[in-house]
């Protein structure tokens, strides 16, 4: 009964709509089509403008990366060990969704499960939202859903865009900034040590100036204050168990040179300027 009533209302509404359009409407051409054409012009101009900005800024940039990114990145290398893959921007939300599901048992939820559910919900929208009401203010559920969807997509896209992984290839890029903040730019040995620190897996257990992992090891931004001295740090890293630390693995096999540089770097990490913000 309710069903047939809904159907009747729907049909009456549409019939009334058709009559209104026939009586009061305007011809599509040229009235509505004029707007469409202006919009089409805007679209084409925007596309051309994007292409021009992309090309000319990249062409004149020293590193080949313009305001809208490089013309191409390096040729595909299936054997790389330093490249950090990222998807096109409109898949950032999916990319970040994958990072959210960081447990092996839930992988397929992030990859297939949630996208499929969302797609089914999207396609099925007209079938579970069956009311004839179209005015926004009288569709509170729809309005809240829309805001939530836009917000979550926006947040996921944004988080995907800035997501970084603590791997050597990315951490090494911090080194110049560290040298500047800690004031060891002139100390070549400390800079070399910083590169060792960034390339090794130190930052999976230690934080340094806001980057890296907050545990289980301590934050090393101001480790020099411990007063171990460059050689002391080198010895400690080489064989932590000698100093009563049985959690941290030994790094003796990275060689005396690297250990010495690492010690110099840690000894230069006073954290003074960093704490000032």
């Amino acid at each position: 009964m309710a069903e047939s009533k809904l159907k009747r209302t729907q049909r009456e509404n549409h019939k009334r709509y058709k009559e209104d359009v026939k009586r009061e409407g305007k011809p599509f051409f040229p009235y509505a089509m004029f707007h469409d054409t202006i919009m089409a012009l805007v679209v084409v101009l925007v596309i051309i403008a994007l292409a021009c900005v992309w090309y000319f800024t990249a062409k004149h940039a020293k590193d080949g990366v313009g305001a809208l990114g490089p013309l191409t990145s390096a040729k595909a290398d299936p054997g790389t060990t330093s490249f950090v893959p990222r998807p096109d921007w409109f898949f950032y939300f999916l990319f970040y969704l994958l990072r959210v599901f960081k447990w092996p048992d839930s992988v397929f939820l992030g990859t297939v499960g949630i996208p499929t559910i969302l797609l089914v919900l999207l396609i099925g929208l007209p079938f579970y939202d069956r009311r004839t009401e179209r005015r926004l203010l009288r569709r509170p559920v729809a309005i809240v859903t829309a805001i939530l969807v836009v917000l979550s997509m926006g947040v996921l896209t944004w988080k995907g865009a800035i997501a970084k992984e603590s791997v050597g290839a990315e951490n090494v890029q911090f080194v110049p900034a560290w040298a500047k903040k800690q004031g060891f730019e002139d100390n070549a040995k400390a800079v070399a040590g910083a590169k060792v620190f960034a390339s090794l897996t130190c930052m999976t257990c230690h934080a340094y100036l806001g980057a890296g992992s907050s545990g289980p090891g301590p934050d090393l931004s101001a480790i020099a204050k411990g007063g171990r001295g460059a050689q002391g740090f080198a010895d400690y890293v080489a064989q932590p168990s000698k100093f009563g630390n049985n959690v941290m693995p030994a790094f003796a096999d990275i060689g005396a040179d690297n250990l010495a540089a690492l010690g110099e770097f840690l000894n230069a990490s006073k954290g003074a300027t960093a704490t000032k913000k």
Partner: protein
Amino acid sequence: MAPAGAACGSWYVVDTSESRAVEWRAGSELSSPNDKPHVPAPSLWPVGFAIGIVCLLLGLVLGSWPIVAVGAVLAIAFGYLWVRDVTRDMRPKEAPAPGTDVAPSAPAAEATEELPGFSRSIFLETATLGIGGVIGGLVTLPVLGFAVLPAFESHKAKDVDLGPITNFPEGSFVVATFLEDPSQGEVSRKTAFIRNNGLTAVKGKQEPSFTIIYSRCAHLGCPVQPGGLLQDAETKQLAPVKGDPVKLIPVKGLSNFACPCHGGAYDPEGNRVAGPPVRALDRFAYSIVNGNLMLGTLYSVGHVEGTGADAKISRYTSASPGVHVDGIERWLYPIPVPGR
């Protein structure tokens, strides 16, 4: 207006023709007053004439004069008959028309009379649909097979020669980059992390043992990075007799493998320690031939217990990244994929 309205009516059931701003001008009716059959009535003479011409040209091409002669005779004879037929009306009526030229109109009339008598035939309907289906199948199935099946044929790559085992220092990792199949080119470039585990006893003999880990993340296939110091200065480029150069870069202080995409991390045996990877890193089988390390087939690993030469590896057929090979979740992927 009428035909345009009719066209619209069949296209768009909903709206009406009144709403159009510009009226379609009248007078484009399809019915023509000139519907009676053309004169002269159709005849077969032009066909004979055409055959004669073809014969003549064929003879010229083949260089055979008898054929040319036959063609010429045919063309002339039928050409004469044709011209006579066409110009019949222009000449004063002297000879009565040959009986054939009235014939075509009669069967046509019969056909139109028969039309309303057609009844829907189940046989014809099924046959039409059936034949259509057969045609569709004949075209689609081979094409689909062509597109799909080669992807599932097993691809047997030859073993890759990674050079003398003396290039692999005992107890530390070397990053080896090589072409798995040089005939495919750069697209088959792969990277493996290789550790020489030293000599170990196998069936009473001392044999070298290796751990060879593939660099593809077991989560979604990103390139994992070795968590250690790459000794770029000590890079070795090997040029084997066959195949492509192999690049070997020793690593110092390797303590993990980390994935740059979604936070997967592995210990030096390839076991997952953090993040979403569903299994351990894949490994390559190996053999030692004449003191050279030969890389064999790829296989997937559920979990590794123990380290180095003593490791107990739960070994499975190579699977896609993200596919569980053990535990309860492997029942999500019950059908083995051929060609892996």
